[in-house]
């Protein structure tokens, strides 16, 4: 914010506009004001200078995923904020109750839609926990899940960073970041057939194996992604405009972050080294050598740095997984869980019935309840499922990580300048589909 303008001290300090200048810019007193000018001057004297209510969103281009902030500003300073979510509510949890477990995968794709693979994995693991088959998932399927999940995490962070920086004016970063993300999507499209809404996981494994040239192609893409990330870092990390907007802006303490229920990069940017993959290792994450990056300060810059480093760590995991991945099946060998092969479906009544019952009735999950949590793009992504012994969940509750982070947005923007709302909001990576469900 620029310093307040002061009038030259040689002149007596004017108290109203009318005393100072007329409409031609001449000083008052030099000539009488015209009646219309006098009226303007009177009105100007009554001009309100108190606080203003300002609406930001839900259709504001920088309020990703349609969030509305009702701000009370005093000049440029935010005095109060009312963050309103729910504009992207689709009733995901209710919808789940009318769908078979397998039919829910397309719905979870649309939770955090910038990293659908991680949602796929998280949901599949919750159902597998209920079925008690977590230990029976084929090793190869677990590795595939790790590979596609970590690639999705890279896409998630790239989306967050490039969108946030583009809103600060760095449009080049947006283009470069999206080019890197395009590499991820090309890989995931090769694997799943869809660019964004993959629906690639299945209860008990994944839908089908990786493509034959995946290994080679993936290594090539990793190198390209690394190059683009380095380019982005060179472009912004020593840029004064960028640093001014990021450093010391949108601070939250580790204590407050934990109180709000922060997880993921936003919590690690407060110096808390909590990562579900490390602290509660699931799948085959304990087979890999990777670090959990943390940063101090809990400000925009810390969140940026954590995400940049996490991308590198994810790529490291993918590289290791590509080396370690064993051959074998990609889904459990259980006719009550896995769909029969198409060859059986079209050529034998047994396969036909099994396929039919799988699709129409869904795979039957024994009655019970389970909470399963994984490290999503924004933090701990949890699914709490209550099963009633049918092919559909009785209740499917999702713990969306960014819901708790968005809850702290008010505190983070209080006292900041109006222009800071955009980078703060951008750096917490609120995803409407996930937050509003």
């Amino acid at each position, binding site marked *: 914010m620029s310093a307040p303008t002061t009038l030259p001290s040689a002149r007596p300090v004017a108290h109203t506009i009318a005393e100072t200048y007329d409409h031609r810019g001449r000083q008052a007193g030099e000539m009488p004001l015209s009646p219309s000018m006098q009226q303007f001057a009177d009105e100007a004297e009554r001009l309100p200078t108190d606080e203003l209510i300002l609406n930001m969103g839900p259709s504001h281009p920088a309020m990703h995923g349609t969030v509305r902030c009702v701000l009370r500003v005093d000049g440029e300073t935010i005095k109060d904020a009312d963050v309103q979510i729910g504009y992207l509510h689709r009733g995901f949890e209710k919808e789940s109750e009318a769908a078979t477990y397998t039919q829910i995968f397309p719905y979870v794709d649309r939770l955090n839609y910038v990293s659908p693979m991680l949602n796929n994995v998280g949901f599949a693991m919750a159902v597998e926990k209920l079925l008690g088959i977590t230990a029976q998932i084929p090793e190869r399927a677990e590795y595939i899940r790790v590979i596609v999940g970590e690639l999705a995490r890279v896409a998630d962070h790239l989306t967050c960073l490039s969108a946030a920086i583009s809103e600060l004016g760095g449009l080049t970063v947006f283009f470069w970041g999206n080019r890197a993300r395009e590499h991820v999507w090309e890989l995931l499209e090769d694997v799943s057939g869809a660019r964004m809404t993959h629906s690639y996981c299945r209860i008990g494994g994944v839908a089908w194996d990786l493509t034959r040239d995946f290994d080679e192609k993936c290594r090539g893409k990793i190198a390209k992604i690394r190059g683009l990330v380095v380019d982005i870092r060179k472009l912004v990390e020593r840029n004064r405009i960028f640093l001014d907007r990021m450093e010391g802006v949108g601070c939250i303490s580790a204590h407050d972050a934990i109180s709000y229920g922060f997880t993921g990069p936003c919590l690690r940017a407060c110096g808390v080294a909590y990562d579900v993959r490390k602290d509660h290792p699931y799948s085959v994450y304990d087979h890999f050598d990777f670090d959990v990056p943390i940063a101090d300060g809990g400000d925009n810059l810390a969140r940026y740095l954590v995400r940049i480093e996490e991308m590198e760590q994810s790529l490291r995991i993918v590289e290791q997984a590509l080396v370690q991945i064993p051959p074998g099946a990609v889904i459990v060998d259980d*006719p*009550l869980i896995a769909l*029969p092969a198409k060859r*059986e479906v*079209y*050529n*034998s*009544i*047994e*396969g*036909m*019935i*099994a396929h*039919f*019952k799988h699709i*129409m*009735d869904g795979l039957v999950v024994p009655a019970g309840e389970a909470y399963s949590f994984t490290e999503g793009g924004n933090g701990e992504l949890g699914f709490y499922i209550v099963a009633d012994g*049918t*092919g*559909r969940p009785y209740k499917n509750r999702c713990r969306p990580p960014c819901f708790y982070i968005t809850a702290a947005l008010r505190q983070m923007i209080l006292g900041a300048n109006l222009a800071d709302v955009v980078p703060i909001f951008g750096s917490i990576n609120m995803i409407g589909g996930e937050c509003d469900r």
Partner: protein
Amino acid sequence: MTSSDPPVPSRPRSATIILPPAPPPPPTAARAAASSTVKPPENRDAPAPVAPNLAATPVPGEPTVTLTIDGETIEVRKGTNVLEAAKLLGRDICHFCYHPGLTIAANCRQCLVEVEKNPKLQPSCQQIVGEGMVVHTESPAVLEARRAMLEFTLKNHPIDCPICDKAGECTLQRHYMDHNHHLTRVDVAKIRKPKHKDIGREIVLDAERCILCSRCVRFCEEIPGTGELAMTFRGDHEILDIAEGHPLDNAYSINVVDICPVGALTSKDFRFAIRAWELKATPTTCQGCATGCAVELHHKHENAYRVMPRHDPAVNGHWMCDEGRYTYKELDADARIRHARVDGQQVPLDHAIAAVAKRLQGRNKKVAAVFSGTSTNESNRALDDLATMLGAERFVLGRPPGKTDELLRDADKNANMRGAIAAAGAAKHEGELGLELAGRAYDAVIFLDGTFELSEVVRSALGAITSVCLSDRVTALAQACAIVLPATSWGESLGTTINRQGRLRVLQPAWRPEGDRRDRADLIREIALALGERDLGSGRDRARAIAEEFDHDGLRQLTTTPAATRPTLLRFSHSRG
């Protein structure tokens, strides 16, 4: 039947008759002065078809037997079979050929269980319970027998699920997933048999899908007693067939479609109409005749697709007649009246109600109120209240009599003639209405239903007076009346009827009424309010009162809990073959 079959347990052929409450004394002099009256039909002894198999639930005063099934000891009625006894414990022993309403054939060998001290596995449907018997239904030998039998059953089964009408409610599909779920080991060609063979008025046979359980053969022999179906040839060339020139066209033939565990027998009416899993089922009562069979109406959105029997031991057992199945065609969406009409013009409902009130008002207006044997007690009672307010003459009309037999079909084709007569009290019948209308005895007439087939004389007489018809579909009578109010059909109404036994039967709404359609009792309530009379209460209020009057828990729940009327989606309900 072979000599090894157990004796069919006998059961006294009697039915409990619940009499309707005595009709209230006629409140007006007009009613008492009615010259000739329609009398309620006599209380006929019309028992439900007797099932040959005893349910396992102990009956007070009857001897019982104690046995152990899978470690659980249970006391059951003497003479029942192990399969029924296990059902009491919540164990559904998988079976194809056993049906509680038919004699036992024990030819599918799917329900084999282990009985201790018995060297071989026994068919649980045929095994009568014995004192101290120890039964295992989940032992390794039983599971292996079940799996192996299913493998045999599937050996020649065609890969028809995508084009089979039974898919989604097929017992074979369900048992395969529950008890076999192994892939095929057979690599020889399947045996071909006749497909889509027309074997009767209502039925098409696909012999390839048939698993030879003989339920349909036994049904035709035992229930209608016509015996058209038989098994011919032997081994895996055995097929179900009819004798040349003797088609399956008895009055109960579609029941074989319901009891067929696979899609071998399909109904011509339902074939390829809709997939079963898209349907929702609403339990209700058949409106085809005075028997009032317990049925399920199967529908999707606002369209009905079929009527299927529900088990009601006191009324219809497991069965219903073919005639009753076609009653759903009355609910045809194309013929529905969705908006009120006054003098041929479509008007908003409140305008039509105001028009009715305006034309009925007047000190010396002589009004005829026509009660209906095809409408619910609720609407007939509402009309009774209105007729009292107007001092109207009462008539009870219905459909003409039709075919009847000893089993379920009643000659009286009105589902609620008893209830209508009870509501109307002493009333006149159709002939008198015609004479009096033709003789200009009345200034106005209100028809509770539009289904009456009135003569040309009567219909032409309606042109000269105020005629009001509460109708759910376009009929000749509705078209002849000056004012037509859109009423709900039995697919959309909550209400009750009284069947030939005097039992209270409940109608449950399957979908929300379209357009301006309202329950008849609600329409009459609006008319009374427009006339400046007291509030008669809604149809639901009347149903609640009837629930109290008959002490009927099911109806009480329907009137108080809206969720109780929610239909069941067939897709996720258990397959019912």
